[in-house]
């Protein structure tokens, strides 16, 4: 059987690395500014160690006979393929905001996201699309004078 490592082990290491990195940056700071970060990062590193230890313990349980008793599900990127895909769509949308302009990027996003959500009814997509754009335009642009990024299109 493959040895399971609980995700807390990685998170603990990650927390330690982050605190080391941020701590190293306090060197450039004036005394008064460095004081608080140093304390907080030390605490964070300490918690990192605790989480790591917790992870090691949990891993042991998983690998022992008692595995079934554990309620917590082990995190793995394989299980969250769909959310990651959704996240990708969001990232592309945000990147396009400045290039295409707010309203065109938003329209594209809604189509893509709903298609991704397996909505195949064109009527539904179009209605949502129009509804959101009109609402945002009425409330934010007309009423509240928010200047959205304009980009190439609209």
């Amino acid at each position, binding site marked *: 059987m493959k040895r399971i490592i609980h995700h807390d082990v990685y998170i603990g290491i990650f927390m330690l690395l982050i605190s080391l990195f941020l701590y190293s940056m306090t060197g450039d700071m*004036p005394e008064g500014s460095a004081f608080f970060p140093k304390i907080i990062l030390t605490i964070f590193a300490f918690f990192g160690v605790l989480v790591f230890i917790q992870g090691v313990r949990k891993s042991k349980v998983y690998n022992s006979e008692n595995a079934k008793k554990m309620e917590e599900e082990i995190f793995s990127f394989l299980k969250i393929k769909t959310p990651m895909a959704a996240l990708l769509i969001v990232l592309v949308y945000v990147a396009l905001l400045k290039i295409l302009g707010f309203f065109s990027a938003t329209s594209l996003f809604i189509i893509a996201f709903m298609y991704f959500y397996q909505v195949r009814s064109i009527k539904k997509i179009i209605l949502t699309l129009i*509804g959101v754009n009109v*609402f945002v335009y*009425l*409330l934010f642009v*007309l*009423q509240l*004078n928010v*200047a959205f990024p304009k980009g190439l299109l609209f």
Partner: protein
Amino acid sequence: MKKIIALLVICLFALSILAGCGAGTNTPAEKDESKEAPKEIKKEEYPKKGITVIVSYSAGGGTDTGARILLPHVEKELGVPLTVVNKPGGGGWVGWNELLNAEADGYTIGYINTPNLMTGYLNPAMKRDKTIDDFTLIGNHVLDYGAIAVKADDDRFQTIDDLIEYAKKNEVTTTSTGMGSDDHIAALKVNDSVGTKFVPVHGKGASHGKAGVLGGHIDVFFANVGEATVPHKNGEMRVLAIMAPERSKFLPDIPTLEEKGYGKIYSWSARGLAAPPGLPQDKLDKLIAAFEKAMDAPEHVKKMEDMGLLVKWMKGEEYKKFLKEDEASVIKVRDLLGW
């Protein structure tokens, strides 16, 4: 879902009616003129479309409020709408960077606040390469001199002389709106020239400092005339001196530090208008002319005076010289700031 949307539409409708009817019942003349005026302007001339005015602070703040009082009068002169866009952040530099990077076509201008703008690049930790010389200057709007005040029932200090004598021997805490703020620099200037021991307590904004002094936690209110006049008149504080070349018309009884014999110690916070670098001269001239006329609008001057703010129009060389002096005065205290 449908019902929610209907609700939203109703609400928006109500809001727009209200905005419309409010404008209609109270200031019909002003609003109508600004909307009808564009038609009279010849199409080929600048400005052809609305102008964006970047304010580097949040809506409702001092700069924003002042801008919104002035701009309707500029609209009348230029015949196009001027829209305020608030771009707060980075001590004002988010908005100023945006202004510097905007196209120099005359359709984006902005407010510059000094000396905050200078401290933003004179502080080496900020690593900025833009300076006041990069802006195309239009003109100054508000000039608010520094004021020194104490809590009204603070018996230790009846006059500015009492305060300074005491502060020469003892550490006295003062309010400050942050490291390198005009209030901070003012306290350092007094320390430097008179030998006092004022210790600034940096806080966020003037209201923080006001609360500190009224509560008796901080000894002295180092602020601007615009912030000190109202508490002075309400009897909550006593202004002891102002840091200006001459007395303020809002506080005619209060002496200046200079006339009390402490030397030319001036402090101010000023805000004016600027455009991105490389704005063509003809457009600049047009903007300057429009703002110059708008400054004199009685309604504008009255409203600013109600707020305790001095309208001080400066343009061209005069404004440039003023800003360079401003810069020089920050550079002078550089060592004291530890930069």
